[in-house]
Structures are given as C-alpha cells and as structure tokens.
C-alpha cells in the first residue's frame, strides 16, 4: 500500500442501509475505493464493477487436464508399454474416462485454488490490511480515497449519514 493516503470510512450497521448508501453514492459519481462486509452482498459486488474470470480459467484448466490425462493414459497404456490385461485391447478408452473425470476435477481444484490465492491475494502469511476491525463481525464499511473520491468530504459524510451510516471517520494509511 502506498504510504500516507487519506481515507474516509463510512460504517453501516446493516446490509440494507449499506446498499442504499452505496447505490446513492454511485449515483452521485463517488469513486468508491473498497467495500468491506461480513458476508458477500451481490449488489455491492456488482456495483464495484470488479470482474473475475476465475470460472473461465477453471474451464480452461479442465480442458487442459482432460487433454493431458487422456493423452497421457493413451501414451502409457498403448504407446509406451502396452500390456495385456484380461484379454482387453490396449486402448481401453472407457476405463480412461473414469480417471479422466476424477483427475480433471482434482486438477481444476488445485489450479483454481492457486488462481484464487493469487488473484484475491489470499495466501498463508499474508498480513491483513484492516480498515475497520468490525468489518468481519457486524459492520459494513465503505472506504473512500480522499484524493480520488471525486466529491467533497463533507458531502460524502452527509450522504452517508443521511443513509444510515452509524459512523463516518477519517483514516490515514501508514
């Protein structure tokens, strides 16, 4: 985090007031830095205009895994060292399907986890950057960067307070 940024923090008590304030702030053209909530709220995620392609990535991981697995098994069982098992042909494709399904799922899971970890910056040993410690308990926080919020500070404060913010305060990042 770049040092010495001034923030404006709006604290809300429940989801509904937060959503109203959030929507109204957006309508007024306020640039919202981040929103912290105890649980996911769809409108907020939508309103933040962030997008994630994690599902698309997962699909490609799957595609990659399927190709690799079937190819690998075909190579091992037919090309590299064909062995006779129970009078079956070397290429026992139906048997490959089972392993392919399961191993694909495994591959997707592992790769998606890493992707999530990398993209959401959630990984072991990460130092949490807490704006308001109550955000994981019962408070809903809207964070504005005072330099970039695109609106006056008092106006925002008023907007928040008018929409049910229990607190509005300033905070400096170190």
């Amino acid at each position, binding site marked *: 985090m770049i040092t010495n940024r001034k923030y404006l923090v709006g604290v809300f008590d429940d989801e509904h007031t937060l959503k109203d304030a959030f929507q109204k702030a957006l309508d007024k053209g306020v640039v919202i830095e981040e929103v912290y909530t105890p649980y996911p709220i769809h409108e907020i995620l939508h309103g933040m205009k962030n997008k994630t392609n994690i599902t698309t990535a997962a699909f490609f991981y799957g595609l990659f895994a399927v190709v690799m697995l079937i190819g690998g098994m075909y190579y091992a069982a037919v090309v590299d060292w064909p062995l006779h098992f129970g009078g079956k042909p070397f290429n026992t494709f139906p048997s490959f399907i089972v392993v392919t399904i399961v191993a694909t799922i*495994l591959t997707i899971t592992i790769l998606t986890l890493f992707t999530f970890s990398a993209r959401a910056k959630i990984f072991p040993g990460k130092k949490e*950057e807490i704006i308001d410690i109550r955000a994981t*308990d019962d408070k809903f926080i809207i964070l504005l960067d005072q330099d970039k919020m695109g609106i006056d500070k008092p106006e925002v404060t008023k907007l928040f307070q008018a929409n049910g913010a229990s607190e509005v305060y300033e905070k400096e990042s170190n």
Partner: protein
Amino acid sequence: MYKTDVRGKLIDGEKSLSQISQEILAPIDAKVPKWWYIAMGISLVMLALGVKSIYITLTQGIGTWGVNSTVAWGWEIINFVWWIGIGHAGTAFSIFLLILRQKWRTAINRAAEAMTVVAVFCAALFPLMHMGRPWLFFYIFPYPNTRGPLWVNFNSPLFWDFMAISAYLLISASFWYFGMVPDFATIRDTTKSKIKKAIYGFFAFGWVGSSREWLRYEGLAFVLGGIAAVLVVSVHSIVSTDFAVSIEPGWHTTLFPPYFVVGAIFSGFAMVLTLVTLMKKLYKMGDFITENHVDAVCRILVFISLIMGTAYITEIFIAWYSGSEYEMYTFFKNRITGEYAIQFWGMFIFNALLPQLFWSRKVRRNLWVVFVISLFINLGMWFERFNIVVTSLSKNYLPASWAEYHPTFIEIGFFIGTLGMFSAGVLLFFRYIPQIAISEVKMISKYNTQQTDHLKPGHHHDYE
C-alpha cells in the same frame, strides 16, 4: 425465492449479527467443559487401540486379520466403504442443498464438511493398511520410473478408487477450509486473546472481507461447488465399481453406482443427524440448529430410505430375473436365509423400514428418538457393506472354496481406532473451529429480521 413459512424460522431468537458471531464462537473462547475432556480421553484410548492394531498389522502381516484365501476382503473394506459413505455428507449437504437453494443448510454444512474430512481420513487408512506391502503404496502412482517405465493398470477400479479418494479428500478439505477463511478472520478480529489472534490470523490468510475478496471467493465457491457436485456422484460410484466391475455374484451389477451414491448420502445424512443432535444439546446451538433443521434432515432420510428399500428389492429381483444360479444362490440362499441372514435383515430393517418412522412429525420432533434412529441407520449401513463384501465372497462359484470369515481383535481394534480418530477429530472441530459458518448464517439472518421492507416483490435476491 425462499419462503420461510414452509420451513419455519431458520434462526431462533432475534439475533444481531454481532450476537451471531459471539454465540457461534462461544465454544472457542469459553472454558472447556469437563465432558469434552472425558470424551477426548475415551477417543484417544480408542485411537491408541487402533494404533496398536495397525502396529501389529504392519509388523506381522495381514495374517493377523480374519481374512483368508476365499474372503480376501473383510472388515477393512467394509469400514472403508462405510467411512467413505459417511464422508459424503459434507459435500452432499453443501452441494446438493446449494443447488436446490436450501438456505437452511448453512447451519449444518460446516459440521457436515468437517465430518467429511475426518471420515475420509479414517476411510483412507483402510485401503492403505490392507495392502500386503503398504510401504510400496507408491507403486500405484503413474509416475515415470526406471522400470521401463512401468505404468499402472488404468483398467483397475482400485486405481480409479485411489484417484477418486485422493481427489475427494483434497477437494473436500479445501472446500471446507476456504469456507472457514472469513470465519477465521472474524475470530481474529473479535478475540481478545493475542495467541488466538495470531493463530487464527495466520489461518485467515489475511482476509479482510473486501469486495474484491468476496468477488473471487464467490467465484471459487462456484467452481468448487460445481465440480464437487460431480464428485459427490463420482466418488461413491467409483467405490462401487470396486465391486461392480468384478465378476463376483452379488457384486457384478449395474445397480451399484446409484445404489452406493444414495447409500452414501443416506449414511452421511444419518451421521450428520447424529452429530447435529449432539451439537444442539451439548453446545446449545439450538437457536441456529432449530427443530426445523432436524425435521428437514429427517424428511430427506425418509425419502432416501425409500430409495434404499427399492434398491434392495431391485437387487433381489435382478438376481432372480437374471436367471444366474450363482446370483440366485448369493441372494436367496446366502443373504436372505443363510448364515449371514442377520446382517441382511439388519440392513433391511435399519435402512429401509426403521426410517419410515420419520413420517410421523412426533418422531421427527423428538430429538432422542431421532438420535437413536440415526445411530441405527449408521449400523444398518455398516451391515449393508458387510452384506455386500463378505457374503458374496464367502460363497461364490466353486463350493469347494467356500469359506467363512470371522474378524479378529486386530481388525476390530483397527475399526475402533478409526472411530476414536473420528470422534477426536470432531471434538477438536467443536473446540477450535466455528461449528457453524458464521458469514453464511449472517447472510441468511436477514430473513429472520423485521426489515421485511426489503423483501418487496420484484426485488430480486437470487445470489447464492
């Protein structure tokens, strides 16, 4: 759109979000009750017995078990399938109820998933230990080697099984863990103990609840949920192929995959019910796990038990309809009337008939009766696996090689050991991990509050 009036209230007592956190986290901060230590002590003694049994098995050989040249699989495979079945509850709960948009699951899924992870661990021990030379278990990996390279046999259900269980263990553990990350953050941010703050802080992976985190988190949940749904079906289907792909009478049937999956969910849900009733009583989680929750699980059990009954009867019908004398012998002379009739009828009564009591609302609402029935179902499901594994093997094609199977104390000790491991695991879970998914409960808590003005028609709440 979820209608609370069908299911009743999801959370009793008008609770604020902060109250939810506090109450769910209470066991972590509160003084550890005496019964916990007693229970843990008993579990560890059982575990020690298991460790001793494993030690004997490892040093002397599988000959210390009761298995023989005819019945080469005994308790260890029964227990493996049984535990794997129980291990289906978590994923089944989370995934199927998620797909069915059953919001009441939130109170239970954490416990169910924890149970899954511990149960799958218990299950995984059995195939490992039942190998003649467990120190060479790595032969089962298809890795490049200097033997040619010699690969594995991709036709073998045991290889599929190995893949399926490894995948299932990994996925259910990560699914469970990532579900807990926001809750760990909550503990970190609410606890007063510095040690807990540091430890839970580490496990929270720096979670703060920002929208960018939640966004990806939702994406991850979607992906994991989606593929885990496949897994719930595939894992026990694959376990069933251990039997279905073979040529043993009573095993060689196409009915097995669905039969096993349903059976697994059945036993899993029964175990969930066992645990949940305990949680409700012991940790006073009654407000979150309401009678309605128990009621809902019971209703599902009735439904599944009907499927189970149908499966049993179908199996018998197919044996007759196939005209194969070996199949007919297995079912009619060996299972229904033979020396293993007790196990067969135990299975049938406990799994297909006893759960029919849940048709009665009175029974569903009596926690003790529910608890006892859930235990019987677990027992019945164990009988089912016994019925499948042992009866088919003991009397198959050539009567000259028919043999009986009796477990030895080593096998019994091993099983008791895994029971101990399971209960110890669950006790640790009770003690150190939020028993209920806090963030998810918070999310549904709004349906209990008075602020119904946001539930105006046309106002869509279709997330999740």
